[in-house]
């Protein structure tokens, strides 16, 4: 896919050179001791590493830590080649800078399960290059050949027992020429990458509760803002009466800003209590009367349009007219909220000569530009500091809340912490788009797959956020896990139709892998059952082995990966107890997918009650994700995305009424809790092939588990549920025999 073009104006490397002279750079992590940092002079061989004369090693973490472990796993990549113990380094979040752009996304963005994949070579090379400079500095000092020197444990040793620590060498090393040819260690020499015992570096602070999230930031003279935003999506303030609010204790100001009205007070609670007394009338905007009848009616009309073709081979429509058996189905998916546990918030201090924005963001690079737009300052006057994120899941790729906080701070002329309530957060999210998916499969008399038709209709996220990557009617982030359709069907035609539902669409963990995996894997399961075949064997027998590259892959590989698929399917079959007879009310379903260059198969065991309540008992995975940098946390990401997917699969649905989101809090937007989480999530890793790069792990299980749950429900109940969530109401609706798929015999 084409990169999302972003240009950072501030160049970290230039800044380093300008500061020079042993000064530490002028940014810091909230909560970190500035005093301690100021004591030691530091030197930076490159944008990723700072070495103090006191031998301290600081590694810059250029991705946002939202639970997925970049804080540790990215540091491990550098430490491995730098020859320092990762447990002894300090990690700092990087400021926005060109050096930190994610090559897979074209911006300094954390998302798309790309952090490790983008960093894989880059950060090992950064570590290796710094090590070579340190060794070179030692060799020059001792007047020996660099080949006679060796870096170990944060020091360089040389002939005759010579030894110098990195701290002693840092200054001269930072003046060395940056090496051009940087060989990396062979895998067999890794001491830290793949260490099964490695702990997360951020765990102690998170257990002690000293880790600073955006919402925890406190700066001198800070005020607190609570906000009132329009209840309908796209509404604006018409007028407001703040008489009662203004007179509440602690209230400093009531200000209107682009999106709403803010009450600024000495504490959040005072601000919130006063905010509840505002009387606001709203311009209802373009979606005033939007409701689900309109959303689904419009979506159905859109689905009747031909859409744009994104992959085609042979003559699918023609072939479907003459096959022995024709199967067809329509799948529907709802809108979903991200709802990370930490509601949106930002601390902003806008002054006449610049601004500081301290925020939990997945897209720090964009913040200076939008804040500049909102304040009249220049991007280079805006200092952005990234905190720990209390969850992200794609929500914090949006920078809306940083703009709000900046506007409010500017209006009151003071540092302000804006905190959203859970209700603000749930009703002003960007939402995983819902959609309608129509699929057809034609089978010949011998039971061979002959023709396949896919037609997806859904809102396009990228049209809103990155319109330049949307071309010819196709949003690459709508066709993931379908562009790489994994089954060999000689005639196929895949089409996509955009539809604006009046519900702001957003990137949500797994993005379009979720919709398409459910549709592809649900339907292939239907066809397997209809033909009386074992679902795993049927998949294996019909895998696509052609490696033809397709055009629109988003963050899938853009091609079928039949060999890898076969391997995980066979592995999960062997390890999940597949084929064993199950008691009544229990079922077992499978799904497989490539996404983020990770191939995974899941087998899910469910129990379904007489009232159609579904319990997910057990999930077994076989995962081919290449080399694991931090194996325990690779597993944690699969566990995490499993439960995130399960929440959506069983419960998730956002609806609108009178143009606004109806769900306000976790009583109306149910998520999986302790008693509902699977009692077992078993993950079997396929060993990495030689030179195989790592695949992404933050997201794919979210999609795979959902499809597998649906297939397990069918196995348990004989009910094929083609509408998410798998709620008792939806399951009951699909229990109606009219929904049973009968082939049309042509």
């Amino acid at each position, binding site marked *: 896919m084409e990169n999302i073009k972003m240009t950072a104006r501030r160049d970290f490397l230039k800044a380093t050179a300008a500061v020079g002279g042993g000064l530490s750079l002028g940014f810091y992590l909230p909560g970190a001791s500035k005093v301690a940092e100021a004591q030691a002079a530091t030197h930076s061989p490159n944008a990723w590493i700072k070495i103090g004369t006191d031998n301290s090693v600081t590694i810059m973490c250029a991705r946002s830590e939202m639970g997925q472990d970049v804080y540790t796993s990215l540091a491990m990549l550098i430490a491995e080649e730098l020859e320092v113990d990762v447990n002894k380094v300090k990690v700092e979040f990087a400021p926005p800078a060109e050096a930190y752009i994610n090559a897979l996304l074209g911006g300094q963005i954390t998302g798309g399960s790309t952090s490790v994949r983008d960093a894989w070579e880059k950060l090992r090379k950064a570590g290796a290059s710094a090590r070579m400079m340190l060794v070179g500095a030692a060799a020059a000092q001792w007047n020996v050949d660099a080949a006679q020197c060796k870096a170990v444990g944060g020091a360089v040793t040389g002939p005759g027992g010579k030894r110098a620590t990195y701290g002693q060498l840092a200054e001269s090393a930072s003046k060395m020429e940056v090496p051009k040819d940087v060989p990396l260690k062979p895998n067999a020499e890794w001491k830290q990458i793949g260490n099964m015992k490695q702990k997360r570096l*951020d765990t102690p602070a998170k257990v002690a509760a000293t880790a600073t999230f955006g919402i925890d930031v406190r700066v001198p003279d800070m005020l607190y803002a609570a906000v009132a935003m329009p209840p309908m999506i796209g509404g604006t303030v018409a007028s407001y009466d703040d008489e009662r609010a203004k007179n509440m204790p602690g209230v400093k100001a009531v200000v209107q800003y682009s999106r709403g009205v803010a009450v600024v007070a000495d504490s959040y609670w005072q601000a919130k209590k006063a905010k509840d007394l505002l009387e606001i009338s709203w311009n209802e905007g373009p979606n005033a009367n939007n409701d689900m009848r309109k959303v689904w009616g419009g979506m159905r009309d859109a689905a009747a349009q031909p859409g744009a073709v994104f992959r085609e081979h042979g003559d699918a429509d023609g072939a479907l007219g003459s096959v022995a058996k024709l199967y067809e189905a329509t799948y529907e998916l709802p809108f979903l909220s991200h709802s990370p546990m930490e509601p949106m918030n930002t601390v902003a201090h806008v002054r006449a000569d610049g601004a500081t924005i301290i925020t939990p963001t997945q897209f720090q690079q964009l913040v200076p530009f939008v804040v500049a737009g909102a304040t009249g300052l220049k991007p280079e006057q805006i200092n952005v500091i990234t905190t720990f994120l209390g969850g992200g899941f794609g929500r914090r790729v949006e920078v809306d809340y940083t703009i709000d906080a900046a506007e409010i701070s500017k209006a009151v002329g003071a540092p302000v912490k804006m905190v959203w309530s859970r209700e603000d957060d749930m009703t002003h999210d960007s939402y995983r788009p819902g959609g309608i998916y129509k699929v057809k499969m034609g089978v010949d008399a011998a039971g061979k797959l002959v023709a396949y038709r896919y037609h997806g209709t859904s809102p396009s996220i990228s049209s809103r956020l990155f319109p330049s990557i949307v071309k010819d009617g196709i949003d690459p982030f709508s066709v993931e896990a379908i562009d790489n359709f994994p089954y060999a069907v000689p005639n196929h035609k895949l089409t996509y139709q955009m539809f604006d539902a009046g519900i702001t669409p957003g990137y949500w963990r797994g993005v379009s892998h979720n919709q398409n995996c459910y549709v592809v894997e649900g339907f292939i399961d239907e066809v397997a059952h209809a033909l009386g075949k074992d679902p795993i064997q049927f998949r294996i027998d019909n895998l696509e082995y052609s490696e033809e590259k397709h055009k629109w892959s988003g963050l899938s590989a853009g091609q079928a990966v039949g060999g890898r698929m076969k391997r995980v399917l066979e592995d999960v079959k062997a390890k999940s107890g597949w084929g064993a007879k199950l008691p009544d009310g229990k079922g077992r379903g499978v799904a497989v997918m490539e996404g983020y260059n990770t191939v995974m198969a899941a087998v899910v065991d469910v129990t379904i009650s007489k009232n159609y309540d579904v319990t997910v008992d057990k999930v077994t995975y076989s995962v081919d994700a290449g080399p694991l940098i931090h194996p325990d946390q690779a597993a944690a990401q699969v*566990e995490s995305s499993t439960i995130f997917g399960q929440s959506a699969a069983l419960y998730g649905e956002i609806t609108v009424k009178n143009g606004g989101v109806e769900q306000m809090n976790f009583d109306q937007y149910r998520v999986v809790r302790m008693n509902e989480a699977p009692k077992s999530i078993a993950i079997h890793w396929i060993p990495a092939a030689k030179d195989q790069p790592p695949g992404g792990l933050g997201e794919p299980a979210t999609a795979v588990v959902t499809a597998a749950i649906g297939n397990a429900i069918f196995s348990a109940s004989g009910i094929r549920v083609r509408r998410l969530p798998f709620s008792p109401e939806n399951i009951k609706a699909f229990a109606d025999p009219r929904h049973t798929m009968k082939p049309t015999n042509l």
Partner: protein
Amino acid sequence: MAISFNLNGKQAMADVAPDTPLLWVLRDTLGMTGTKFGCGKALCGACTVHLNGQAVRSCQTPIGSVAGQKVTTIEGLAANHPVKKAWVALDVPQCGYCQPGQMMQASALLANNKSPSDADIDAWMSGNICRCGTYPRIRAAIKAAAKA
């Protein structure tokens, strides 16, 4: 009028309206940000603290009702408490945001039940949401802490 109470073994004072939730007194007035805000409606457990040894949702606990009582927050749970040690040993936190509440809820469980079963853990912990889905590790950590 200032309200005084015992916070993590020390006297604490807050001069705020008595209906102010303990959560915001801790976070804003006293600067103790370990206790988190998640829902404000007793739906998520992020704000869990101990009031006289019992796990309560501080977002629903008016400071007026706390006068003269004993409050323990995550900052006051000893660093060598078996729950904290188990959380570190099993690398439970992901984003970490829900974890102070989870640990306060879990430590209250273990104070009353030395060897909780899966069903006990389900019943006791189901008010605490973790969007990162760390439940399997929380369960394992509670069991490890129970054995410590």
